[in-house]
């Protein structure tokens, strides 16, 4: 084997180890007993593997199923709302020709670059005045606010790839723009809609700071925030239980990712290929 290939292989292995090590640790710890998970000298694999942590989630005092349901409902709703609102915006950015088009597009992009915490105070006040604090709906508004810029840009990429002649044919046939969007463009970008929705879903799923800030009732909490609030105590932390909950929290995301990964890759490159 050539030296360059060996170096390449070592670098790849290190990168993989760096990325996968936390995942392995989470999985391994979820099968450790309370004692083994908390001991000072960590063990690389569970010496006495146990399912007690998972049993505790299913039948324990914590409403894990409620947290899971809250998260699924909130993230699904966020994905739908974000895609529905982003679609006409993305279509306008892709097809309409108006003076400030470039500025609007970059403004949307720039807003995406704002740290999440910058939106916290203004969103909190907004939700407070709208009586949406401590509610699933308020959380959806918060998640969608953050996810919209990305959804607009991603959908724009998919719409750019639709040949303009197809829409012009529909214009010649006498259809108005909104019907062209719904009857011609949307059916052609269904993979893009699903991919964008999946991205927004995953982002909302992992969001910790909004649920911690906007939800005060434990029963309305999402998984990410519940992991922090319920497994860390004043005197001890239930590492095994937390890692079991974290593993179950991660699984739906993994399934969602594998389901749409091909479309994701296409979505990330289609803009460049079409010259959009």
């Amino acid at each position: 084997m050539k030296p360059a290939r060996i170096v390449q292989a070592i670098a790849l292995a290190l990168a993989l180890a760096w990325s996968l090590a936390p995942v392995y640790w989470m999985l391994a710890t979820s099968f450790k007993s309370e004692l083994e998970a908390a001991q000072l000298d960590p063990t690389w694999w569970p010496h006495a593997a146990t399912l007690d942590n998972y049993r505790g989630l299913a039948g324990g005092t914590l409403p894990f199923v409620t947290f899971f349901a809250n998260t699924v409902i909130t993230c699904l709703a966020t994905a739908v709302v974000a895609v529905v609102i982003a679609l006409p915006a993305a279509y306008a950015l892709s097809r309409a020709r108006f003076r400030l088009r470039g500025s609007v597009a970059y403004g949307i992009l720039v807003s995406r670059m704002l740290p999440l915490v910058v939106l916290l105070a203004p969103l909190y006040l907004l939700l407070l005045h709208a009586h949406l604090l401590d509610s699933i709906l308020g959380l959806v508004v918060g998640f969608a606010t953050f996810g919209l810029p990305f959804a607009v840009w991603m959908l724009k990429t998919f719409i750019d790839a639709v040949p303009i002649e197809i829409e012009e044919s529909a214009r010649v046939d006498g259809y108005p723009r909104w019907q062209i969007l719904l009857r011609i463009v949307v059916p052609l970008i269904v993979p893009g809609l699903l991919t964008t929705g999946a991205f927004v879903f995953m982002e909302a799923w992992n969001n910790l700071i909004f649920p911690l800030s906007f939800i005060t009732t434990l029963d309305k909490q999402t998984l990410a925030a519940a992991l922090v609030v319920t497994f860390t105590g004043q005197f001890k932390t239930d590492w095994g239980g937390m890692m079991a909950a974290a593993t179950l929290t991660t699984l739906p995301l993994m399934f969602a990712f594998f389901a749409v990964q091909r479309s994701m890759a296409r979505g990330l490159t289609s803009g460049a290929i079409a010259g959009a």
Partner: protein
Amino acid sequence: MARISLRNIEKRYDDVVAVADCSLEIADREFVVLVGPSGSGKTTLLRIIAGLEHVSAGDVLFDDVRVNDVDVGDRDIAMVFQNYGLYPHMTVYDNMAFGLRRRDLPRAAIDERVRRTAVLLAIEPLLARRPRQLSGGQRQRVALGRAIVRDPAVFLLDEPLSNLDAHLRVQMRAEILKVHRAVTATAVYVTHDQVEALTMGDRIVVMSGGRIQQVGTPGELYDRPANQFVASFIGTPAMGFLTCRLERSGGSLRLAGGGVHARLPAEPGLPIDVPDGGPVIIAIRPERLALSRGDERADADVVVQGSVEVVEMLGSEQYVHVRVPAGSVTARVPRDEPVRIDDRVTLTASARHLHVFDAETGASLAYPQMAPSA
């Protein structure tokens, strides 16, 4: 019925002028071809007629009614795009019926029209298929069918054959002309292929640089090109152009220089406004040139002497490209004429077939001895 009038049309994209001061009258049921190289403005002009582009200046009229502000869907036009523009997620049947459903026609009426058109274009077996299951030629027929089924007043076709292979292109040209005769609507056809233009158009509009260079029948454009551009663009192979000096002596004109000798009987009041000794550009259609070998100077009106640069064998004939100091010319000669590269040859022609152009502007200089158009 639809007459189309374009009056002083201009289209700008920021600082770029795509179409400049174009005026054109298209009669009802006429088949007009817009032809020119890429970037000449022909597609932009077609899209302006369709309403897909707004004019920067000028007026578009259908039957003397100004339609500048009329939406594309309300202009009673049908368009066939270069890339067909078929709806990928619909069957052939739905592609053809889609435009009719917008008009709230009864289902039975839509079905009858779609099937009748499908029979006309021999695509009835394809009605249940989707565009990705069709060949290029089949997609082209479906695109045509989608236009025909709407029974419009005007057909607009934007290079519909450019994605087909040469053989299929020839076949589809005839199909389109047959269909046009059957539907009797006004048609405006865009192409960059001058052969397509010559074979299909009732009249041809030659465009270059966003401007109309000449409008005429195929015969007019071929025999009496208005300028050097039209002369070089129309005709296969293209005419070669030779630069020589104009000399007036004893009531006749002589053109000489760079391997060219031509004598032209002058008429009183000849409108060739070039000073004695000034440059002009001459050209002759390749089929009007007779070829003889060697340096002999034949007793002909026009004699061009040079050496053979390239010989193209086309089966039934040859194109012989001859380099002379004044430029280069091409002659069409029989295939059994023994010509080789680097042969010294003499090309002769009658003065009746000589085209003369202004060396500065490229405009055709009227010459009364030129043959009238066929």
